[in-house]
């Protein structure tokens, strides 16, 4: 108490100088002192009287102590790792005796005592395994592209059917990257990648026009970049892109020979909804089939369906299907109409028993049998005949690694419903099985092996499939959910390409480093150990190689190779060799320097006196002494080679498209559009490249630290 009072006096004296009334302060201090005293007494009383609360208090104290300890440990760790403070000895360490271990083991121990290094190592291993094992599991089809999924942004939204719709589905339709659904109450739902990537006006299909929102809708269908809906009152309304006369009369192509304008009756009048048999949309084109067999077609037919124009006059149409650039129609008499596309779409390929192929027109092949259903992918048409045969015409490939073959149905099993996606067909059979076959790159053929009621409704969208039960409930769905890291300008999955690109980049980096290290070690050893004219000659050669400007030289070599029409694999191997041949000089000098220093040491003289031969001394006695330098340099060079490969590929002189590497995936960065709008196309490969190289560099740096006894781990 006395001491405190002294302090108080001192503070009084000080405050006198500040010419203020310090009475208040003194008073306050006195009060607080009194309070403390009171508190002390109070706590004593508490301790004496309330035994129960004591236990609680103790627990709280222990907990507080624990938190404090954890906190201080964390703080110490952070300080040591990032700020570089010295290690505080905890009491156990003070008297601990350090075991003597071999240098290699010591290096390991030291390395694993560095949290940063271990973190970097773990991240690197994860990325390494991702690039090593990933490609084995997920195959990459180099020729693959998907024009309907160009520049899709990251996200898994394609199959997010709204909850309100799930139990009350009337129809679902999708032609590209967004889907539109209609429930039995006539309400329209839109999901998926609803912002059109190529749109100049950033059109969002979620902005359903008020007219559609406020009225009951009878039909809705999605095209490539537009949606058409028919309300119960017979109004035909479209939204989305309109430049190609998809709907309305405002498109820039209206009035040209490119397009068929929307018929006036649809534009301004109404049609009887009860007479409408089908509404379907394609690539900027749309068609309405009436029950009496007449059709309304409109849109950008030059791009969407070049044979569409002649369909307008027909009055016997039952169903229309849009393909990539054509349309086909099922006529009421059971024949299939191809327009001018019969040559490409309507020819049946018949394989005889001896393997020879004969070709027949579908109408001839039908031979009186009637077509019951048709379905279309981008380039093929499937026709179901009334005797149960399924005929596929056009281009439909099921033989690649990433596709599913057409299933063989069991005896007596017939196809009830046939549906076509962009690259696959789906069908529901009389046994309740659902099958999908065709291209499976986007998992659109991963049909569940379950059975469903034969009165279910199967809907195959471009890349998704839905099974709707008889009670309008969504039973199941499969297909493309979206893309984790988006897609590029050809609709290829960026994530998949990063996986495969990583393998390519790391392989090139590793092989190049191995080549360069071997050269550098041999040259450095010979030069450093033998000295004299050998050293002179080899160092001049090293200087010559070192003086070659890397990028121009690589570009020249690469362009020479390009003219030689070499196979891509050979080319990649040559790139590794070029990288290796051009990057050994630094390490060679370093090895030489180290060996020059080691050569004069006594143990080398001792080894000579032992009768050890020169070569053996150089490579077996001296080299192990400089191995740490080499190891560190190899690690750092690995990152360097990966970066060089990437820059070469980025410039278009390394590995070429379509083969992915992290470097050539960045080539889109040249365009302002890509940098600004399609950030996922360059950001993800760049992040992978960045993280990998930083991790490798941290590993290399830490290795150097732990191998060099002079840079002590405990600062």
């Amino acid at each position: 108490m006395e001491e405190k009072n002294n302090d108080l006096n001192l503070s009084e004296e000080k405050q006198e100088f500040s010419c203020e009334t310090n009475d208040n302060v003194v008073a306050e201090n006195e009060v607080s002192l009194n309070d403390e005293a009171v508190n002390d007494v109070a706590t004593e009383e508490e301790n004496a009287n309330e035994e129960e609360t004591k236990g609680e208090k103790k627990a709280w104290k222990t907990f507080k102590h624990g938190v404090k300890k954890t906190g201080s440990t964390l703080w110490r760790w952070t300080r040591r790792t990032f700020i570089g403070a010295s290690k505080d000895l905890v009491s156990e360490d003070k008297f601990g005796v350090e075991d003597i271990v071999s240098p290699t083991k010591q290096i390991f121990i030291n390395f694993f005592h560095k949290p940063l290094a271990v973190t970097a190592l773990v991240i690197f291993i994860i990325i390494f395994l991702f690039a090593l094992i990933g490609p084995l599991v997920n195959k990459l089809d180099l020729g693959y592209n998907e024009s309907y999924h160009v520049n899709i942004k990251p996200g898994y939204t394609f199959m997010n059917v709204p909850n309100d719709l799930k139990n009350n589905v009337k129809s679902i339709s999708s032609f590209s990257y967004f889907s539109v659904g209609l429930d039995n109450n006539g309400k329209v739902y839109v999901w998926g990648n609803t912002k059109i990537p190529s749109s100049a006006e950033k059109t969002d299909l979620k902005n359903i026009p008020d007219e559609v929102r406020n009225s009951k809708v009878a039909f809705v269908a999605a095209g490539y970049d537009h949606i058409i809906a028919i309300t119960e009152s017979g109004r035909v309304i479209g939204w989305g892109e309109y430049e190609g006369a998809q709907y309305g009369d405002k498109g820039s192509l209206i009035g040209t020979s490119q397009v068929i304008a929307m018929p006036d009756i649809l534009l301004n009048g109404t049609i009887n909804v009860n007479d409408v048999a089908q509404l379907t949309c394609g690539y900027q084109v749309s068609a309405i089939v009436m029950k009496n067999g007449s059709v309304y077609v409109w849109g950008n037919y030059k791009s969407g369906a070049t044979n569409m124009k002649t369909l307008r006059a027909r009055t016997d149409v039952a169903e229309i299907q849009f393909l990539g650039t054509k349309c086909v129609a099922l006529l009421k008499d059971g024949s299939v109409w191809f327009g001018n596309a019969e040559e490409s779409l309507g020819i049946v390929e018949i394989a005889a028993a001896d393997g020879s192929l004969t070709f027949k027109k579908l109408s001839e092949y039908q031979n009186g049998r009637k077509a019951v259903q048709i379905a279309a992918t981008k380039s093929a048409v499937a026709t179901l005949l009334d005797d149960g045969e399924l005929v596929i015409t056009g281009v439909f490939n099921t033989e690649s690694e990433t596709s599913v073959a057409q299933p063989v149905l069991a005896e007596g099993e017939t196809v009830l419903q046939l549906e076509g996606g962009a690259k696959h067909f789906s069908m529901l059979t009389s046994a309740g099985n659902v099958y999908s076959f065709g291209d499976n790159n986007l998992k659109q053929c991963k049909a569940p092996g379950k059975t469903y009621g034969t009165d279910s409704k199967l809907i195959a969208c471009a890349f998704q499939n839905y099974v709707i039960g008889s009670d309008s409930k969504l039973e199941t769905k499969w297909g493309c959910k979206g893309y984790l890291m988006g897609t590029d300008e050809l609709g290829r999955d960026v994530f998949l390409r990063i996986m495969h690109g990583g393998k390519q980049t790391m392989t090139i980096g590793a092989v190049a480093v191995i080549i360069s290290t071997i050269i550098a070690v041999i040259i450095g050893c010979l030069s450093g150990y033998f000295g004299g004219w050998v050293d002179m000659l080899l160092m001049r050669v090293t200087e010559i190689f070192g003086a070659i400007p890397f990028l121009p030289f690589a570009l020249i070599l690469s362009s020479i190779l390009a003219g030689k029409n070499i196979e891509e694999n050979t080319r990649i191997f040559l790139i590794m060799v070029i990288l290796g041949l051009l990057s050994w000089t630094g390490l060679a000098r370093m090895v030489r320097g180290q060996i020059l220093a080691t050569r004069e040491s006594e143990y080398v003289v001792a080894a000579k006196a032992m009768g050890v031969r020169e070569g053996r001394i150089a490579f077996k006695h001296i080299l192990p002494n400089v191995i740490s330098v080499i190891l560190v340099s190899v690690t750092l060079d690995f990152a360097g080679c990966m970066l060089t490969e990437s820059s070469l590929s980025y410039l278009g002189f390394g590995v070429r498209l379509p083969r992915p590497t992290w470097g050539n995936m960045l080539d889109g960065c040249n365009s302002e559009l890509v940098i600004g709008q399609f950030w996922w196309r360059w950001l993800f490969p760049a992040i992978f490249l960045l993280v990998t190289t930083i991790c490798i560099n941290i590993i290399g740096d830490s290795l150097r630290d732990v191998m060099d006894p002079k840079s002590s781990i405990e600062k």
Partner: protein
Amino acid sequence: MPLLEVKNLHTYFKTKKGIVKAVNGVSYSVEPGKTIGIVGESGSGKSVSAMSILRLLDANGYIAEGEILFEGKDLTKLSINDMYKIRGNAISVIFQEPMTSLNPVFNIKRQLSEPFMIHQGMKKKEAAKYAVKMLEAVQIPNPEAVMKQYPHQLSGGMRQRVMIAMALACRPKILIADEPTTALDVTIQAQILNLMNDLQRENGTSIIFITHDLGVINEMADDVVVMYCGQVVEKASAKTIFTNCKRSHPYTEGLMYSIPKLDSNDKLEPIPGVVPHPLALPKGCKFAPRCKYCTKRCEEEEPELTMVDEGQLVRCFYPDKEERKSAEHQKEVIVHF
């Protein structure tokens, strides 16, 4: 017949300032099973003369003249491949610095197995067996454990024992010990010297013992060669030098006075001055500038190595101790210091 005979050896080093004559006409011979001690200050050419035997000179060094006859073969004329067979096999070396003469990245097993593998073509496992035996021979306790250790885990004495084990691995005929105990403390020094004596007795190895420590020479050597400025100034049996003999070279005398003695109260009497620069050697006797008996003749003429007694050769005009201390001689003496 001597085992090794060094005849009129001249080892020179080319430098930018001129040719350094590090060894200038040295001759001595090593008898089988005997120890010859080479004594001299730093820079007197004693190590270079020994290293010349194995032709382990630096890149700018060369043997200009002379013969080194080992079992009748002239080592200076052997091909490098034949030299590999001699090094570490017939003639081996123990170096001064046990701390740095072992390769830090190899464990003892690997270091010690190497001579067996190189010279006797043994496989790793067999060589390791012999290596353990060698460690036992040099009295290292727990040799199995030491085999797995690295040089930095061993003490200086242990390392020197390992070095000796390596040198003796192939039972060489000659062991060149280049100041093997200089870096060790006295007790360890005595242990190592005893060990070397024991091993010599067992194997009949000849030892060329290079040192500047006359006490060690007294312990070890049968014959002594005293070198100064690349020349032999005195050659005699150890007995002759260390008993109160009548004749000796003033340098040898100086060296003897420089040994600290526990049993006398006399002050240590060092040899004044320093060894002359090898490129600026005096004209007459090389020791003349530091010699307290130096006369005008000494500065102008160079004395020859002459037989002064049975088995004692001295390079001095005044080998008789009494005579050069006499008042008559003192008149002629030129005083430098």
